């Protein structure tokens, strides 16, 4: 049984500033549960723009986007925030950890916001996630006291904390050196194989994309291969 998690129908997007610009053209695709999908394409072809739309952060587009069967158009800001909180995990190029908080707390924040579990349980779960990546020993350090590679792993743990339907990544290893991007790459592989986590990762690393179930290639705002 393969359940459709994400469905994009005829998605078009325009930028109007400084000039009218058709950035995404007739995007159609679906992602089913457990798939590990990578998105590749030249710089500037619209990969990030697409990801922001899929993540519900950008609602200024034409077409239909269904997440877990529900159409997201017309939803209020609060409802979208809840969808992001509950169903989507993000990893960006930059880690975006909050320096005011400990590593552990950073991972816990989205779960505390969701409020599905008690604080003790959330803490326990957060430590479990950190353990997967072998960084639980840094749990009580401040976020700015760990290395770049470790930060990105914490960011992935944070994305996982609410057991999201899908994890989206926008060049998650783009800022890292060879060694660390290798680690991140292996983490995603493990998540897919061991945990059957659905993943949608933008990358420009051919080696990375070669290791995924399915590669979507974009060019000039269109999906040319999927």
């Amino acid at each position, binding site marked *: 049984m393969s359940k459709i998690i994400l469905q994009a129908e005829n998605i078009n997007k325009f930028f109007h500033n400084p000039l009218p610009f058709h950035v995404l053209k007739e995007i159609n695709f679906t992602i089913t549960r457990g798939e590990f999908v990578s998105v590749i394409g030249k710089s500037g072809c619209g990969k*990030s723009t697409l990801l*922001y739309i899929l*993540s519900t*952060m*950008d609602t200024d587009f034409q077409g239909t986007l269904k997440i877990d069967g529900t159409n997201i158009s017309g939803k209020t*800001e*609060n409802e979208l*925030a*809840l969808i*992001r*909180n*509950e169903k989507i995990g*993000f990893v*960006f*190029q*930059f880690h*975006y*950890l*909050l*320096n*005011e*908080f400990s590593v552990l707390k950073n991972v816990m*924040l*989205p779960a*505390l*916001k*969701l*409020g599905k579990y008690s604080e003790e349980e959330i803490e326990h779960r957060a430590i479990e996630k950190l353990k997967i990546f072998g960084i639980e020993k840094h749990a009580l350090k401040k976020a700015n006291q760990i290395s770049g590679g470790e930060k990105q792993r914490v960011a992935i743990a*944070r994305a996982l904390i609410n057991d999201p339907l899908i994890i989206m990544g*926008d060049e998650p290893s783009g800022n890292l050196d060879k060694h660390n991007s290798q680690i991140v790459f292996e983490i995603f592989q493990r998540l897919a194989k061991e945990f059957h986590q659905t993943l949608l990762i933008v990358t420009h690393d051919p080696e990375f994309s070669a290791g995924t179930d399915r590669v979507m290639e974009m060019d000039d705002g269109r999906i040319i291969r999927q």
Partner: protein
Amino acid sequence: MKFRLNWEIAYSLLLARWKQTLVAAIGVTFSITMFIALLGFMTGLNDLLDGLILNRTPHIKFFNEIKPSKVQPIDLSEKLKSSFNFIESVKPNTERVEIYNVSAIMSALSKDKRVLGIAPKITTQVFYNVGAIDITGVINGIEVEQENKLFFFSDYVVQGNYIDLKNIPNSIILGKAAADKMLTKVGDVVQVTSAKGERIQLKVVGFFQSGLQDLDKVQSYASIATTQKLLGQTSSYITDVQVKLKDLNLAPELAKYYGSLFNVDTEDLQTVNSQFETGTRVRTLISYTVGITLLIVAGFGIYNILNMMIYEKMDSIAILKATGFSGKDVNNIFITISLSIGVFGGVFGLLFGYLISKLIDQIPFVTSALPTISTYPVNYNPMYYFIGVTFAIITTYFAGFFPARKASKIDPVIIIRGK
């Protein structure tokens, strides 16, 4: 849970910038301190100055004014009723200054629930005979206990015991300035001549100081009985009936009502002392203006801090929103920061305001004009403390309002794309 989480985030943002936060909080503290101290001091002064007048002024005074009769005999003539009658140089013909039918007035007033108390009084012109010369003066014949109850008479008796006035027959309490002029000591006997030439020896049992020098030069007090004896009048002779009400705002209305009921002249406090409210109001206004101005300045400080915090924490705000915090949460976080500064600063402001008030309260303030006062007067009315924190909270709320709204509107896509 949700509120706690937002609070926790707000708190850590605060701590991350604790120096600036502290400065902002000190701004609030300073303005609330000034507000409390100023208002306490100013209203303390107000109460003192008002008290000078209010304590000793009846809310309503009933008396009989010497004036020509409005109805002249010619007006009573049937024949001339339809014509205009002009009479020149009308003069009052009777010297009667006593109130007619005092006992009826007194009993009616004492039944009125709005009346706090009644004190009858006789005011009469006299001469104090000092050696060969006579000094003019006024003797107030009073019901000693009532006078004390309603007008705090004993507060102004600076030497001797006020109650002796009642207990010792033929006694007098002289105005301090008058006594100084006459070189009189407590225990001496002074001779007093009434306007009609009656002479009487009175024993000085105390001195009186009102704080108004002009008054103290002429005024003296004796019991009603003593004054009636001096004037050669019966015990029904009363020139003034002084009334204090439970609510002084009713004075003009009641004065009018009883005045026409008993056909007697009346004076109410508002008409006599219309200017005293003005000074009070100006002083209060100044205190509020200074306090609020300071608060607004502090408010701008908070506004700046928050704006700076938002610029610095753009990334954090973006990721909070990306991971499921709504605009409302972000708004709450920044409002919480602002209000925390306000409450924290405000509470310390109250404390310091109180301490400074206490300090002002210790500063000696001795003046012969105000015998009952030894230090600067301070009002500790909890209302000002309440208004102080309320203002602090309102100002900081508004200072936080716009930055918080700005933060809540931050588009995470723009921030994340910018990296």
